[in-house]
């Protein structure tokens, strides 16, 4: 049994069209699992279900064997953290103020973060090598730094499971590599389990222990990157002709023009 067990999960926003249909999957501890699928295939919605941001229409999600619908919101948040794809800034908080928010699941309703919470945030900033940003304003740092800060905020809660929605979107190639490196190190050192969505199958090849293919809200296929990211599968889920080439023992993909 995995850390997270999803059984017969269905979800629809207004009971008309199902966004997720009969999803079954299990996430093993200490692995990086990548969700691949075209836009609108339900990847983000699946992450939101697992993080209890939206409620499944039917089916169950178990966290370490406990049915999530029986858990309190902050209990879920203590175990699962979420890094959304975009963060719309509202007020120019400092990075430390921003990252402290991740400690919310441990802080009582009438309390504020204390010394221990601040120490935890400094630890996380150090581990990501961005301690120097601590007093900068969120509005004044670069896109790549913002992504690291978002990850730091999620990590400040010391989660067992980290969900990331398109962590490499809008980043240049250097920052993409940086973010993937951070995620890899994280999983190796702390036995965190990572579930993330990606747009680029090649990044999945580089990082995933397991790849899950989603299309139209259905789980089509899952397995190792090597088994899953094939010309046929990619053509099938993206409706697009692609070419492949092999490098070392990995297969990479690019669209046929």
């Amino acid at each position: 049994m995995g850390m997270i067990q999803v059984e017969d999960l269905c979800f629809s926003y207004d009971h008309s069209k199902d966004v997720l249909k009969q999803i079954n999957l299990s996430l093993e501890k200490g692995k990086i699992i990548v969700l691949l699928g075209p836009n609108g295939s339900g990847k983000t919605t699946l992450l939101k279900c697992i993080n209890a941001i939206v409620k499944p229409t039917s089916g169950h999600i178990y966290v370490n064997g406990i049915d999530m619908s029986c858990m309190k919101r902050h209990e879920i948040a203590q175990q699962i953290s979420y890094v959304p794809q975009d963060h719309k800034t509202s007020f120019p908080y400092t990075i430390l103020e921003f990252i402290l928010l991740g400690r919310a699941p441990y802080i009582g309703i009438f309390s504020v973060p204390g010394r221990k919470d601040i120490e935890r945030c400094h630890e996380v900033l150090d581990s990501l090598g961005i301690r120097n940003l601590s007093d900068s304003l969120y509005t004044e740092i670069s896109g790549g730094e913002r992504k690291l800060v978002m990850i730091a905020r999620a990590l400040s809660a010391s989660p067992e499971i980290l969900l990331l929605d398109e962590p490499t979107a809008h980043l240049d190639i250097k920052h993409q590599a940086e973010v993937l490196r951070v995620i890899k190190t994280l999983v190796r050192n702390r036995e965190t389990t990572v579930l993330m969505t990606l747009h680029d199958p090649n990044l999945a090849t580089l990082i995933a222990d397991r790849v899950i293919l989603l299309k139209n809200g259905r789980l089509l296929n899952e397995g190792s990157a090597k088994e899953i990211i094939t010309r046929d599968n990619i053509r099938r889920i993206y409706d697009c002709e692609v070419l492949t080439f092999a490098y070392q023992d990995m297969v990479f993909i690019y669209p046929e023009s």
Partner: protein
Amino acid sequence: MARETKGIVLFLLYASPLFFCITSVFVGPYSLTPAEIVDLIGKRIICSGQSVTEQAILFDIRLPRIILALLTGCALSASSACFQATFRNPLVSEYILGISAGAAFGASLSIATLGDELPVQLMAFAGGIAAVLLTYGMARIRGETQTLSLVLAGIITNAIFTGGNYIIRYFAEPEQLHVLIVWLMGSFSAASWKDISYSGPFIIAGTVFLYLLRWRLNLLSMGDEEAKAFGINTEKMKIVLLGTATLVTAAAISVVGIIGWIGLMVPHIVRLLIGSDNRRVLPASATFGAALMLMADDAVRMAKGVELPVGVLTTIIGAPFFAYLIRKSRGGVWE
């Protein structure tokens, strides 16, 4: 800004009401010296009934006026800081949910049609609360209250109550109309201990409650989805915060009338000085708002000849000053 400077600025913001409180005692057409005031307070304590006029000026006119101004400034600014964080928008104030329009409607109804049957304060308070309930009811769809729907519902509520207000004004007698217009222009000139006993408990209890929840404001300002991911019950939290801020605002304006711009401006100035963290913004807005309101009222009282309603002054000074502030500010406010 260096950490030490920030600390000093924060201290000044917290201490500002005290300073203006002391200076405000001397402001007014009847001059009282510091020695006289100490003397009056001493006599009040030992209950010796001399110099009745001075006693009345200090204890029945100036003190209630000072306290009511402090309470009102605190209420409008603290609740606006709460509205701004919850709506994730630094340009939001007590008008956003229709409180002011509702309170104005309630007050008009009382002044123009009910006469003395129901006090203006009670009707204004009820009007403000009714307006917010209407806004919230309209915005709640399938158990969720999106921020944007709240803003739109607030605009509709404002329109409905403003329309109602126009009808009442059209049919009102001229002398009623005068009372009504003066009420709408918020003033402390008639401040009494009774007013304080009406609004004070709501304002103090509500502001303390908002202060306790100050860090939650940071969480809510991240938006519903992220706040939920932090383990927050966003729907409940919004009801509690907006409900408290509404009570506080309605309590203030139902007693003094509508005073614009203070609520919008104060949290903004505070954020420019000490940053965006609501752990400091909320209490500093409460204290600085109180001080600024008192300062504005002092300015009005010092004017020779005619005394303008303070609501007029805050609007005339507030609007251009605010324009100056937002053009000067950096860091995402005007993005």
